């Protein structure tokens, strides 16, 4: 006699997302940074910010440096960053 098995995996709710507007040029825009502050990337990140700012002459800068590298940045902080920037550079991983 055959056996019927139930699938143990969880359904993943697919969130709806709309594509963000493309930015024509990066120069002179409001730039955001979200950096996880991983110890292995501190020097790299500092250099990256300097290089970007030298090249793009941003209108303004908005930084989120996460207190906990291994947890998401506070949602409210990210929402504020979204309002105050045209694009953001996000540093994840190690």
């Amino acid at each position, binding site marked *: *006699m*055959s*056996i*019927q*098995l*139930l*699938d*143990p*995996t*969880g*359904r*993943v*709710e697919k969130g709806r997302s709309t594509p963000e507007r493309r930015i024509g040029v990066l120069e002179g825009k409001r730039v955001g940074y979200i950096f996880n*502050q*991983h*110890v292995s990337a*501190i020097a790299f990140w500092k250099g990256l910010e300097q290089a970007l700012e030298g090249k793009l002459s941003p209108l303004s800068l908005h930084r989120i440096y996460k*207190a*906990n*590298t*291994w*947890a*998401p940045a506070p949602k409210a902080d990210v929402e504020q960053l979204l309002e105050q920037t045209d694009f953001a550079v996000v540093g994840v991983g*190690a």
Partner: protein
Amino acid sequence: MTATRNQETDTSSMFEVADMEAAVEFCYQQNWTDGLPVVPPTRSAVDRILDYLGRDPGEVIGVIPPGNGMATIEKVAINCTMAGCKPEYVPIVIAAIEAILEERFNLNGVQTTTHSCAPLCMVSGPAVKALGFNTREGSFGHGCRASASIGRAIRLVLWNIGGGYPGEPCKTTLGHPGYYSFCVAEDQDSNPWEALHVERGFRPEDTVVTLSGVTAPLTIASTAGYGPMEDVFYVLADAISVLGSNLLTGGDAVLVLSPMAAKNMSGAGYSKQAVKAEIVRLATRSVRDVKRRRTIAESNPMHWNKIVDAANNDARVPYLRDPQNLVLLTSGGKGSGAGFCAVCLGWGGLGGHTVSRRVQFPGSLHA
């Protein structure tokens, strides 16, 4: 071997296989197991659990990271079936899942970190006896269906619903055997102090799960059978304050005291809080030592330099920043004079912080 996709239930697809042997192999093929064989999740076996729970199978307990699968009552019941749980074990699994979904546990981080921390489920309260947990010899290990299958069910939920597969997306460098099953129960008969859950604000008549994201147990010969308590505390604290531990960033440790150790501490006049205070006081290393362990960026708020003068090489860096960061549990066999205990070190300030949840049984155990 072939399997046929069959009718859809409300929330779960169904597959048809030829026989029991094929069912076990099919579960392997689908990557539904942690590496060990599972009990095939048949409709009737899952329904036994659902009937016991009396809850809507589609009720969502939460979303399990990192894959963000929805943990419905039915999905949890399926995974509990596969782990070998009796229906009456399942409320404990549900409470454990609810607990680790609390934000402070940072389950996404625990699941994906390169560290080797896994959720340790500590059960305390009347269900320990009622459901037959082994709290004596080998309480962390093999030989007891309740702790083995409940611990495994939690893992299978993290695996099948959360998509917590090693490699992608979970980066644990080594893992440990507790990734299969990691559950231990408190022996209140041997515990000279208040139960863990009472200490954490629950009623004595409650059954509670307390979970911490921790490494594998390190056995400590505390010498509690014959040593003066000052030395016993020193030995226990030494096992916590190791340079390789992430506790330098904060966070929790679980210390499991064998009944003999707990009894002799109590007999020497130490309350539970006094034991914790003493171990917290002693679990330190010098700044000189700790500087050799480059944990996190010096600018990070969790860095120990925020609580100790980093310029003073003789200053002591605490591994447990508060007595609340030390979870004390009494469990295990009588042992020998060596007074074996075990410590499980946490992930640090990064997550896996201790969380507790009352278990809600549908029947007579608890209303």
